[in-house]
């Protein structure tokens, strides 16, 4: 059971309680969810093989629509319907109960059909099914045990019903109950009979018959959502307004310590198939990005860092505002050039890039008393956090920069360039944003890396990408004279290509490094 509301949740830390939390109904499914069968992940899935050649660390996937997800379910249902010779609605309930594991269901059904039906909350074949309802004669009047309404023996057949378990209630109470389960509790596949401790499942046909159209639509959406949630090879696109589902068969949970399965949805946005992250968190592993974000959210120092987007010039103390993503700052007043991140002089950055990305671990090692040690560890954290947050913020500023870019593209068109010739500007902004996001997560990674030779290669790749990004960023913010427009275009195009190349080098090194087990972390992954 998970919760959205921590404060109102009662959790017991004691392990003894752990087994009972999920209840009997959920436990079997949870087990098969967390330990999927190895054969469930066929790396060379025959249905997904028509995509272009990929890097070894890229995953193959397909973007599905809700209709396709429904068709998938129907195909499985039809298969079981034909194999076991049972009604399709029964097949659907059995499949849901077995978390869509068709093999396990068949095995159970061939061993003991009666018990398999009962376990899934269905009536055994011998008892009357509500689908093929035959008019039976009722010889006694009936009082609904819920609302206490009386029904004459003539009314019983039309106004009350039972699901074959012997628990009879009036249709009004059934409707009220099922509506509440769907509307208030978001339940679908596990709505049970109202009888005390009765596990009989309410069939979709009954839901459709009893509840109003809007709710029955919601019910079917919930069934769909449950299908996706139950399937290890499916994941909803997490971006708002998008209803696509990603299908991928290559990412069992145990692979997530060596794979960052970034995929691109048809809505144009990235997500992580491994953890559902609404973005591209490469190069860092799912588990680490989660740890890092939790640390940032918990840490009060983090909040302190998120100061206003203004700083003072280290020379003349006049206030400087940052309005683009570029870290190369020039004080309007005294013309002093410095780095926004470390506040050091920019002259040290241009030629031989300073170690702005690497934390000097020495001060931590030298610290003798615990207080100094904890201060050193805080400083170390803030070092990486500052760089992480700065890229995050810069990427956002660059996105705002789009509008300015559009205007400049229009201006260039009046200066003799065609629209297509100005597109390089927008491409450059795209490249910068993508690279900043990579850099951002690379600092989360760096925080958890154990220092060794491989880490040094990683940091030098980080440095090179930092420098490439800053150069391009700076170039983009410079307003060129009209006569050097073509030269500027060439420069920006070249710088963009270089940023892309540096970004690929960093990602390639890290992602292949996972396969080779090259990265050692200070935490277990």
């Amino acid at each position: 059971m998970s919760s959205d509301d921590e404060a109102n949740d009662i959790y017991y830390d004691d392990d003894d309680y752990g087994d009972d939390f999920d209840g009997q109904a959920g436990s079997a499914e949870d087990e098969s969810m967390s330990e999927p069968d190895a054969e469930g992940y066929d790396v060379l899935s025959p249905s997904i093989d028509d995509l272009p050649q990929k890097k070894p660390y890229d995953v193959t996937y397909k973007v599905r629509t809700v209709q396709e997800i429904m068709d998938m379910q129907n195909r499985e249902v039809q298969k079981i319907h034909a194999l076991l010779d049972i009604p399709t609605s029964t097949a659907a309930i059995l499949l849901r109960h077995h978390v869509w594991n068709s093999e396990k269901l068949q095995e159970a059904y061939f061993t003991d059909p009666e018990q398999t039906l009962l376990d899934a909350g269905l009536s055994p074949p011998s008892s009357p099914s509500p689908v093929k309802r035959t008019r039976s004669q009722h010889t006694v009047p009936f009082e609904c045990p819920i609302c206490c309404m009386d029904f004459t023996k003539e009314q019983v057949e039309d106004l009350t019903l039972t699901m074959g378990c012997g628990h009879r209630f009036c249709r009004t109470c059934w409707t009220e109950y099922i509506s509440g389960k769907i509307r208030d509790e978001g339940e679908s596949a596990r709505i049970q009979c109202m009888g005390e401790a009765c596990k009989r499942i309410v069939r979709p046909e009954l839901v459709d018959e009893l509840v109003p159209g809007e709710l029955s639509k919601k019910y079917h959406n919930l069934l769909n959502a449950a299908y996706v949630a139950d399937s290890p090879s499916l994941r909803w696109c997490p971006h708002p307004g998008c209803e696509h589902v990603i299908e991928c068969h290559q990412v069992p949970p145990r692979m997530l310590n060596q794979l960052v399965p970034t995929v691109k949805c048809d809505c144009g946005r990235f997500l992580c198939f491994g953890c559902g992250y609404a973005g591209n968190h490469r190069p860092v592993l799912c588990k680490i990005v989660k740890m890092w974000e939790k640390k940032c959210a918990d840490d009060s120092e983090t909040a302190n860092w998120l100061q206003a987007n203004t700083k003072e010039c280290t020379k003349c103390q006049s206030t400087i505002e940052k309005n683009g993503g570029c870290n190369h700052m020039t004080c309007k007043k005294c013309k002093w050039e410095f780095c926004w991140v470390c506040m050091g002089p920019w002259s040290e950055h241009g030629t031989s890039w300073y170690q702005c990305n690497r934390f000097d671990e020495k001060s931590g090692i030298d610290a003798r008393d615990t207080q100094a040690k904890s201060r050193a560890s805080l400083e170390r954290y803030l070092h990486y956090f500052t760089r992480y947050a700065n890229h995050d913020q810069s990427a956002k500023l660059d996105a705002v920069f789009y509008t300015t870019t559009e205007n400049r593209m229009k201006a260039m068109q009046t200066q003799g360039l065609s629209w297509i010739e100005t597109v390089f500007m927008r491409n450059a902004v795209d490249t910068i944003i993508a690279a900043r996001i990579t850099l951002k997560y690379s600092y989360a990674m760096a925080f958890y890396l154990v220092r060794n030779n491989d880490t040094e290669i990683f940091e030098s790749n980080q440095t090179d990408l930092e420098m490439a990004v800053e150069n391009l960023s700076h170039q983009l913010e410079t307003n060129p004279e009209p006569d050097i427009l073509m030269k500027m275009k060439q420069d920006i195009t070249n710088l963009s290509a270089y940023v892309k190349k540096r970004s690929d080098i960093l990602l390639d090194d890290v992602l292949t490094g996972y396969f080779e087990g090259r990265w050692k972390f200070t935490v277990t992954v």
Partner: protein
Amino acid sequence: MATGLASKRLMKELAEIKSKGTPPGITLLSAEDMQVWLFSIQVLGDETIYKGETFALKMKFGPRYPIECPEVTFVADQTYNAVIPIHPHCYSNGHICASILGNEWSPVLNCVAICITMQSMLASNKKKERPQGNDRYVRNAPSNPKLTRWHYDDDTV
């Protein structure tokens, strides 16, 4: 606020209590309207650690009772000399962690059935202690226990 559904059902339950009475140790203290009822519960016999104690159980009914479970809490009440029982499933603010009041509620259950369950929950207890994390829970708890998502730790209640 009880609607047609709740009030008809409650009237029926009330009539039944008046004609047949309540089980031993359970008394209806007040049922002035169809919104809040108060029962007293005692654990009978010499075996119990609650010998001689009286507890007051308050039930608040929503319009969807009995499709929805009522809001059930133990209350301290001087008139009836009632205290909140010290029990591993009863928080000191009167909230009760019992699956019958949550995901195992069935609309065929009624007030007396709730009382009987609470009585047997008390009767089976051997050690007077508050739930783990009582203080933390009481500090943050919503006034309505139904807004708490309980994680039931045993199947006996």
